[in-house]
């Protein structure tokens, strides 16, 4: 299962990238599995995606929690609380 992960705003800057692609060999994966893979990169990844950080998650352009189930080709986005308007 291939998942595209996008980053916006401060997270994009801190990670110095706007996109990472992740593959899982099995199925039944959740958003939390993606977060685990990213945290394992260590450094800023571990810091910014820590449980106590208030980042937001979108799955296929809708806000979700980290328990949301993933499907092949899904687009996840991770970003700080929004500040438009």
């Amino acid at each position: 299962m291939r998942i595209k992960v996008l980053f916006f705003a401060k997270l994009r800057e801190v990670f110095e990238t706007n996109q990472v692609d992740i593959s899982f060999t099995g199925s039944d994966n959740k958003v939390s599995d993606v977060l685990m893979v990213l945290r394992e990169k260590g450094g800023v990844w571990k810091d910014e995606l820590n449980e106590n950080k208030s980042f937001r998650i979108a799955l296929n352009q809708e806000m979700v929690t980290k328990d949301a189930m993933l499907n092949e080709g899904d687009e996840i986005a991770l970003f700080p609380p929004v500040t438009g308007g």
Partner: protein
Amino acid sequence: MTVRVQTEDFDVGQEMLGLRQKNPKVGAVASFVGVVRDLNDGDDVSSLTLEHYPGMTERSLEDIVSQAKGRWDIYDALIIHRVGTLLPLDQIVLVLVTGAHRGESFKACEFLMDYLKTRAPFWKKEQTSSGDRWVEARESDKSAAMRWENTRDD
């Protein structure tokens, strides 16, 4: 079109005329314009850069417009939100609501702004005299949006 995300400025008078002229039953037009301030949290702001999530932004704005239309007796609504680099006094956002009467139009307009502030994927970065900084989400925006979940619709 109900929702527009654009770098260009907008003309409030023209947009208002465009929205209301389609319908001679419109008696009320409530609107809100957000403007770049030259000062925030005590620092001079020389410019503001707005980043967004293309695709999701439009979807989330369209979603809150249909929520507003479902909750209040209004005719139409329009949201225009700018992205890119803006200067103090520049317009950031326009929310327009037309209806037969003012009460419902005012409520829907305020609801749209409150929901937009907490649900649409935009992020502001300020260029100030003490350097660049990402604007932090405000707790007051969160509670402003929350109150629509706790109120009856009248």
